[in-house]
């Protein structure tokens, strides 16, 4: 192994990663609290009432960041699963399984808040529309990943089997993202686009981005704390 690749894999060893993960988790936990507090303040007190939807639109400050996280966390999970398959590093599998419960949670929150938003604006709690259906499939992919992992006792085999599922399931993410363009859906188009000027009030956008960053920091803090638990468990089993 060359010096360069040695450097690259330095933190892929659970033992060197453990203290770094602890520091990062603490920093991100504080950042999450501050960002979410700021996001809630802007979202609930500063942002103006929407001209069409009244106060009901304030669900956006949870719904959109949660939906972003649900897709983003799945991609990161699949990335770590693929890294585990390619390099056979134990930490990769731990990262993937640490992200799954938080990803599933944000997927559920996106569906739940979407339902509570759909009722007053569309008149229905649920419709079998492309966006909603593909997001529901994402929730089942997270559940399938966790169930498969839990059902295999040998950790390396469990990592490999669940990695294949995670990688195959990643095709669903672009389907969710582009579903509003590809199909004629009831769900509105993308709220924020990198190529178009923002179509909403600046304070609405700021509130949403603050919440998104807060959820991001929250996810990192929770996932890294979970990875540290997995490392501790592994050490305990090695000691036996």
């Amino acid at each position: 192994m060359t010096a360069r690749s040695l450097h690259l894999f330095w933190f892929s060893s659970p033992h060197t990663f453990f203290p770094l993960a602890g520091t990062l988790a603490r920093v991100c936990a504080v950042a999450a609290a501050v960002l979410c507090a700021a996001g809630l303040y802007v979202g609930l007190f500063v942002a103006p009432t929407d001209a069409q939807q009244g106060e009901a639109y304030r669900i956006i400050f949870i719904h959109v960041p949660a939906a972003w996280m649900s897709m983003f966390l799945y991609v990161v999970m699949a990335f770590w699963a693929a890294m585990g398959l390619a390099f056979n590093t134990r930490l990769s599998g731990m990262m993937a399984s640490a992200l799954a419960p938080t990803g599933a949670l944000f997927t559920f929150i996106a569906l739940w808040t979407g339902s509570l938003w759909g009722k007053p604006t569309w008149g229905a709690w649920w419709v079998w529309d492309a966006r909603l259906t593909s997001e529901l499939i994402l929730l089942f992919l997270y559940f399938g990943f966790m169930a498969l992992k839990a059902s295999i006792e040998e950790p390396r085999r469990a990592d490999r089997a669940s990695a294949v599922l995670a990688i195959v399931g990643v095709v669903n993410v672009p389907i969710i993202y582009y579903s509003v363009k590809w199909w004629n859906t009831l769900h509105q188009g993308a709220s924020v686009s990198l190529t178009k000027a923002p179509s909403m009030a600046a304070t609405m956008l700021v509130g949403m981005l603050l919440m998104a960053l807060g959820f991001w920091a929250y996810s990192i803090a929770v996932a890294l704390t979970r990875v540290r638990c997995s490392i501790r468990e592994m050490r305990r089993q090695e000691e036996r």
Partner: protein
Amino acid sequence: MSEFLAMGGYAFYVWGSYGVTFVLLAIEVIVLLKRVKRETSP
């Protein structure tokens, strides 16, 4: 204050979203911290 809580008649939908999100995230954190405590105590 009561006007703020009423959310222009959408209180159930808005607070239903915020409330459930807060409770679920709190449960995740509590479960995780219990796991940390269990594992670090000898």
